[in-house]
């Protein structure tokens, strides 16, 4: 990379390229000097890279804006071209509904106005276009209020630009600016308060969300405060001020008008379809951040609310644009161009992404990597902050959404595995004395389980040597539980004989008939399952690959034995019993058997809801992991099919094209005549004609073949979707059954029973405050006692209530995660499961998972 490029990329960074200088003015001068030297022969490259930088390094947009402004002073075409390019990009982003691009390009637009490259009136025009589109969307008659998320997004975009150019707009176009502000005000007065209880991480906040301001209202407040403060923001560098005298003489351009895509207007369809549309809009125009308040307010860095918003935006942008570039990601995260510290805010922002519902923008493991890298980049500051976040989340674990709990467990175990499994476990030793269903205890137990999977039992045992009490929570040392160890065991001889046959490489068919004759006919099928599963699992017990090999070879033997769902449930029971001390192997074995279609997902659901598992619901992740795997695998196969169909559709178009062309070529050749001896004869040689005909026929055959492949896949997808429907019906029915039996009855006045103690929530709030003092006297012995006391007080919850909370939490989590798959079947589900006198709390959990309003119940 030549030096002008490096300098352009690195402008504003504290880096060796600029000799470690921190003065922005100096950076811009140096960079501009080099760019201008190269300008003659690299004009286009410079323009292109500048735009790329603005798009992908949005926190440095002010610098890029000034650089464009400076070059514009010398070469007016350059500015004009940048403005035109920006227009194209913005229009394309709007049309393709690419939120991230729209947002960053709007900021660049504002900044170019500050550097006198774009006219302020053009910025106002863009604002007004978005504003009027937003106003139309939420209008019942002209628009479609289901698309409010899109309208909200447009308004957020306008508001987000103001910290970068509010001062300039007020100064230069005060009346127009006021018009925009009035427009936003009137939009805010019409729009509906958005409350997505579905996406709330802490369940206790559910009730609050109705009263609290939503994201747009909140941002509006910040902007109003900002305007009364004279638009002073610490977190936005304003380098153009240093160059104002020069820039003022630059030529500013108009941005051609833009247009927003029109969302489909609302037709008076059913509530379900309107709600479904609203759900899809929420996914398409997601709220970017849902703040997670982890730290008490005295811990988090002091800053203006708008600065907080801006730093969050910076961090989210770095996470977005530097995905896959570890080194740069960590270094930009750690060194944003703001004059205050923000480690706590950074931790809250990253954790808010790990816990983002329904899905984080990237897989949670990405954020795990970022945290690991930040702990290394800021060894003095960040690890302690992360530890503080963990403690705080641990204190509120019982209130955390079930899906988020799972993510937290996976993240934390992975994180510790990168830091030698060091954690001050003695702080949490007290959980041993809690009831086994206490959420904190379950959390510790599941973290240890995952640690053991990532490492090995003895190592993890050693890692908790400061808290030997917790050894009780370790999973059993993972050994298999083979039933036939001595000759007295019923089945020992049969199993041994079976093993010999496997060893003798007998075929699946031979073994099947042996099983039929020697076990089924004498001892019955149930016993046959026991012997076959115990023996095969034992043979395949050494590793994942051994298991796969056995299943590939003898899966048919099992499949023949277990043709119906009841037999499959028995089979899963046997797997679970063989691997009762190893949840991972149980889950893997069941997962693979489903993969080989030895067992159906319905059988897995049925097994998960068998009594012995139901009793585990609030105590262990084991049944849930198996259920999650089954649904996830089903979903993955559907997603694969959809992808394949997409590709095939493209191939069909391509093949059609080829076939038409080949046919045309043949026909053209065939009809080409020439006059020989006064008679018209064919001009082409017969050999070529024959060849062309062959091509045309082959192309047609190819087209038919691709079409048939597409039809076959379509049929497969239709079947898979039908199976999916039965899966969800069965899943929800099972949930409904177990919950109806256990949920407390609705009181006579129709009020929902309260599972969570109101006092409980209060005591948690107090904990949060205390946790900060706790941290300070880290080595204080009293802390543990105090903690223990508090905890016993907190788990006044009865076991049954905890079971209900946990199970309802999973109902919500599954509904939310697979909402797009559940929505199409909602009418069936309404009729078959959710109708009638279904328990309102169950209904509420499902509805809230699907983002349906519960008010209409």
């Amino acid at each position, binding site marked *: 990379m030549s030096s002008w490029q490096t300098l352009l*990329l690195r402008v504003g960074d504290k880096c060796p390229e600029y000799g470690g200088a921190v003065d922005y003015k100096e950076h811009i001068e140096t960079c501009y000097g080099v760019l201008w030297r190269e300008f003659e022969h690299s004009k286009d490259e410079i323009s292109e890279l500048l735009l*790329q930088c603005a798009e*992908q*390094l949005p926190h440095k947009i002010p610098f890029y804006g000034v650089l464009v402004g400076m070059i514009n002073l010398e070469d007016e075409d350059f500015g004009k071209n940048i403005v035109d390019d920006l227009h194209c990009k913005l229009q394309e982003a709007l049309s393709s509904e690419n939120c991230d691009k729209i947002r960053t390009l709007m900021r660049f637009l504002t900044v170019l106005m500050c550097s006198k490259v774009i006219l302020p009136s053009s910025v106002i025009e863009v604002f007004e276009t978005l504003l009027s589109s937003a106003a139309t969307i939420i209008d019942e008659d002209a628009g479609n209020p289901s698309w409010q998320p899109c309208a909200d997004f447009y308004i957020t975009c306008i508001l987000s630009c103001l910290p970068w150019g509010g001062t300039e707009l007020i100064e230069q176009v005060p009346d127009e600016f006021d018009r925009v502000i009035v427009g936003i005000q009137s939009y805010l007065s019409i729009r509906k308060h958005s409350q997505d209880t579905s996406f709330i991480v802490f369940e206790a906040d559910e009730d609050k969300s109705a009263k609290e301001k939503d994201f747009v209202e909140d941002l509006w407040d910040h902007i109003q405060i900002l305007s009364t403060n004279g638009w002073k923001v610490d977190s936005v560098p304003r380098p153009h001020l240093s160059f104002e005298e020069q820039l003022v003489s630059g030529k500013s351009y108009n941005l051609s008008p833009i247009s927003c895509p029109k969302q489909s207007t609302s037709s008076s369809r059913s509530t379900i379809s309107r709600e479904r549309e609203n759900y899809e809009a929420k996914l398409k125009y997601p709220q970017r951040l849902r703040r997670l308040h982890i730290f008490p307010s005295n811990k988090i860095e002091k800053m203006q609310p708008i600065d907080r918003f801006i730093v969050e935006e910076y961090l989210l942008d770095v996470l*977005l*644009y*530097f*995905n*896959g*570039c*570890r080194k*740069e990601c960590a270094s930009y995260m750690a060194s944003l161009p703001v004059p205050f510290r923000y480690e706590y805010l950074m931790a809250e922002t990253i954790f808010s992404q790990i816990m983002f519902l329904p899905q984080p923008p990237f*897989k*949670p*493991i*990405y954020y*795990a*990597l970022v945290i*690991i890298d930040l702990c290394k980049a800021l060894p003095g500051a960040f690890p302690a902050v992360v530890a503080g976040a963990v403690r705080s989340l641990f204190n509120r674990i019982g209130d955390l959404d079930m899906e988020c709990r799972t993510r937290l467990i*996976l993240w934390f175990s*992975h994180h510790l*595995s*990168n830091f*030698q499994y060091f954690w001050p476990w003695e702080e949490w030793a007290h959980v041993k004395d809690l009831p086994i269903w206490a959420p904190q205890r379950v959390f510790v137990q599941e973290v240890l389980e*995952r640690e053991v*999977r*990532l490492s*090995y*039992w*003895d*190592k993890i045992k050693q890692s908790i040597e400061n808290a030997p009490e917790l050894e009780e929570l370790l999973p059993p040392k*993972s*050994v*298999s539980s*083979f039933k036939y160890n001595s000759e007295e065991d019923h089945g020992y001889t049969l199993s041994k004989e079976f*093993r*010999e046959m*496997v*060893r*003798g*490489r007998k075929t699946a068919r031979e073994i099947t008939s042996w099983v039929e004759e020697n076990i089924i006919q004498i001892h019955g099928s149930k016993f046959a399952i026991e012997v076959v599963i115990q023996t095969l699992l*034992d*043979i395949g*017990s*050494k*590793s*994942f*690959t*051994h298991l*796969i*090999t*056995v299943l590939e*070879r003898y899966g048919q033997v099992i499949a023949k034995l277990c043709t119906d769902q009841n037999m499959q449930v028995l089979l899963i029971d046997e797997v679970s019993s063989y691997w009762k001390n190893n949840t*991972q*192997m149980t889950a*893997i074995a069941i997962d693979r058997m489903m993969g080989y279609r030895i067992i159906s997902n319905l059988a897995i659901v049925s097994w998960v809801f068998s009594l012995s598992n139901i009793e585990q619901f609030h105590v262990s992740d084991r049944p849930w992991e198996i259920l999650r795997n089954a649904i*996830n*695998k089903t979903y*993955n196969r559907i997603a*694969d099919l959809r992808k394949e169909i997409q590709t095939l559709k493209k191939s069909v178009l391509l093949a059609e094209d080829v076939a038409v062309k080949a046919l045309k070529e043949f026909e053209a050749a065939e009809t080409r005549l020439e006059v020989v001896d006064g008679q018209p004869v064919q001009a082409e040689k017969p050999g070529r004609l024959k060849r062309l005909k062959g091509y045309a026929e082959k192309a047609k055959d190819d087209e038919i073949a691709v079409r048939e492949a597409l039809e076959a896949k379509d049929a497969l997808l239709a079947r898979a979707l039908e199976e999916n429907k039965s899966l969800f019906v069965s899943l929800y029915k099972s949930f409904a059954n177990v919950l109806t039996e256990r949920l407390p009855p609705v009181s006579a006045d129709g009020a929902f029973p309260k599972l969570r103690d109101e006092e409980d929530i209060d005591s948690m709030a107090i904990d949060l405050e205390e946790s900060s003092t706790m941290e300070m006297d880290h080595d204080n012995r009293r802390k543990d006692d105090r903690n223990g006391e508090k905890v016993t007080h907190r788990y006044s919850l009865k076991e049954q209530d905890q079971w209900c909370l946990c199970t309802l939490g999973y109902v919500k989590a599954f509904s939310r995660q697979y909402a797009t798959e559940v929505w199409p079947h909602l009418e069936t589900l309404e009729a078959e499961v959710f109708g009638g006198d279904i328990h309102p709390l169950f209904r509420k959990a499902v509805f809230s998972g699907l983002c349906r309003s519960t008010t209409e119940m």
Partner: protein
Amino acid sequence: MASLFKDLAKLSAYRDRRFPGNQEEYEGALQTSTTVYVGNMSFYTTEEQMYELFSRAGEIKKIIMGLDKNSKTPCGFCFVLYYSREDTEDAVKYISGTMLDDRPIRVDFDWGFEEGRQWGRGRSGGQVRDEYRTDYDPGRGGYGKLVQRELESQRELVDYGAGALSAFQPPMPYGRHGGDYGHGGSHRHGRDYRKRNREDEHSASEMSRRTSGYESRRSSDHDSRPEKNPRFRESGDSDDEDDDDQKRRR
């Protein structure tokens, strides 16, 4: 995304010289592959550990452990096969350079597993890199193979006396069972391997003098003998029983 800082076209610095094709085809294979190569692993890391870590990037289709071609024991590399390309990319992006068994593992796109690629390509059976290493790496069998052989030949020349032997031991005597590495014969695809705690009488007595395998691993006592693998599932897959059975049948 992030095209500014990373040359995305450059997928892997490593070029497998056994790839049957030219550079262009090689890159094409890497660009569409759903297989990753994992390197710098501890010999002790199990498939289940790999499964737990790598399934966080997506659903896993298959895991193929790299094995020493003589001893049929893991020798520090592995292939993980995914169903989707996206998951494969995420494994490379998010897992490469992170720790597994306290070692920073390397994760790269791989052009695709083929039978035979599971074997180490070093002269001694393991990976080439373990031939010439001069450092002591307890997670990868102690010293490099060359150094180990050197130490062994020194030992043969000079009689140190029994006590001094513990400092330098010959390489782990895996594979002294006359090449009979399968167990049960049911799935002897060559991908089969023995767990590494098989000790012959010699090393078993050596082990018993120590405390636990784990502690000795942490101690500074540089012993070239790999320690007992604590991740071994003891019951239910007794190799010895298999061997006995086979003897009995003969």
